[in-house]
């Protein structure tokens, strides 16, 4: 398959390599130095870096500015874009802004409800939903037109992605939902973090049965656990997260000062198991405020060095 965009991530995937992406959250202020340092630390170990968009509805420096910064550092950003805070005018405008800096990857998301964040009294927008945003980016890129129909000069050349949660309810539409996102235009998929590998495998079976892994690149998501407390929190408090009891037990079974190491070990084992799952095209390592451990995870999981592409 020929790449449709100049995206490095796309080239790596189309060349048949297992891709590795990671993510960085922008700061809660205008000092972008920390983000730049986090990204720099993983430069040689990942193919692209997602930049979150006001994740969990907590107000932060915008994803677009942070992506520009990474781009200027010679890194490959993935612009995360949620439909919670902007209408179709603002979304398309920001897409063009990103395209003007040759940001070549976008991940279209609905975004957490603002109830979870620091501005719970705010209005939300939801003019489009995440599927409609996928369609919008594809239309802008492939047809060179705005949603409103007018032509775009120098359309955005973006590799278009979406998120998928194999663990959310209702279970029977998890695969149809992925099919729908792909039909809407998703070319790569980054999944929710996986702790329940068996359930993920069942989902992938359904994905393969419909040949969806041949229509979009599926990057399996992982997040290393830092402590037993974090495991329990993810299990009980985060909607749509599946942390099996045995994972919580394993974390709780080692002394507190060694739990972080255990979390990294679980993450690496998970990656190794996921490498064996047919149809998995790569990995998305979300090390929340723990980016410095990503190089080690990538190396120990046998995913280094990263391929070079033209």
């Amino acid at each position, binding site marked *: 398959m020929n790449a449709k965009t100049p995206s490095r991530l796309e080239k790596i995937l189309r060349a048949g390599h297992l891709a590795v992406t990671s993510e960085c959250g922008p700061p809660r202020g205008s000092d972008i130095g920390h983000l730049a340092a986090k990204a720099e630390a993983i430069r040689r170990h990942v193919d692209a870096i997602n930049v979150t968009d006001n994740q969990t509805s907590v107000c932060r420096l915008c994803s677009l500015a942070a992506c520009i910064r990474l781009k200027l550092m010679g890194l490959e950003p993935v612009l995360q874009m949620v439909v*919670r805070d902007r209408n*179709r005018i603002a979304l398309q405008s920001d897409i063009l802004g990103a395209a003007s800096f040759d940001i070549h990857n976008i991940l279209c998301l*609905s*975004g*957490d*409800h603002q*109830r979870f964040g620091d501005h719970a009294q705010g209005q*939300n927008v*939801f*003019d*489009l*939903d*995440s*599927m*409609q945003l996928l*369609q*919008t980016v594809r239309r802008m890129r492939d047809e060179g037109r705005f*949603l409103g129909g007018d032509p775009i000069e120098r359309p955005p050349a973006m590799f278009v992605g979406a*998120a*998928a*949660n194999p663990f*959310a*309810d*209702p279970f*029977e*539409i998890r695969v*149809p*939902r992925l*099919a*729908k996102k792909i*039909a*809407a235009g998703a070319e790569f998929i980054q999944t*929710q973090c996986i702790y329940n590998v068996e359930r993920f495998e069942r989902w992938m079976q359904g994905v393969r049965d419909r040949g969806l892994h041949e229509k979009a690149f599926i990057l399996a998501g992982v997040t290393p656990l830092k402590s037993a407390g974090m495991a329990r929190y993810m299990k009980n408090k985060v*909607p*749509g997260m599946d942390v099996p009891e045995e994972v919580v037990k394993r974390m709780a079974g080692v002394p507190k000062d060694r739990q972080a190491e255990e979390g990294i070990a679980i993450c690496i084992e998970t990656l190794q198991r996921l490498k064996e799952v047919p149809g998995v095209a790569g990995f998305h390592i979300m090390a929340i405020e723990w980016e410095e451990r990503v190089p080690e995870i990538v190396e120990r999981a046998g995913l280094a060095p990263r391929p070079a592409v033209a």
Partner: protein
Amino acid sequence: MIVAERKPIEEILPWLEGVRSVLVLGCNECVTVCEAGGKKEVGLLASALRMVFAQQGREVNVGERTLERQCDPEYLDELRDSIDAYDAVVSLACGVGIQFTAERYPSKAVYPGVNTCFMGAALERGVWAERCQGCGQCLLALTGAVCPVARCAKRLFNGPCGGSTAGKCEIGPDVECAWQRIIDRLKALGRLADYETLIPVKDWSKDRAGGPRKVVREDVRS
């Protein structure tokens, strides 16, 4: 129906400082059914106000009246002869009735006695839930007659989001996930395959986004 909730009296009292007579004005329609602004609630608020005024040592005449509808000039006209006896009106109608009363009697101060919440229905006695946001272009035919605009916290047309858990919405365990309901309905109707049809970008110009709306029917205009 339009569902409303009574405002706490503490919020109303400051508006009535210095008035010598106030009319508590109910409405016999939706707010009666949802027990926020019918005859009964008019009586309750009027008695409470009288007690407070007595405690404050103020002599305030508190009148009570409940109209058939406050959103209809015909019924509002019934106040024509009596309204001048009052300095102010506390209306327990929905936001529509409150405004209509004020429009009909422009020199009267009219205050809201309820918070108008949504268009909904009673799930059981004492529990009302939202069902419609009057988006102006009903798409219930596509969603098994479950409204994603009013009932999905993110008004997703191609849901559910990743936060749907055991039939509940990510915003809280006491909120149903609309998309779980939509899928259950499609399944019950033998139409689950329709789930994969993408619902296109919505024309919000018929919603409040398009500005204040009006329906004009030339055929029934007099």
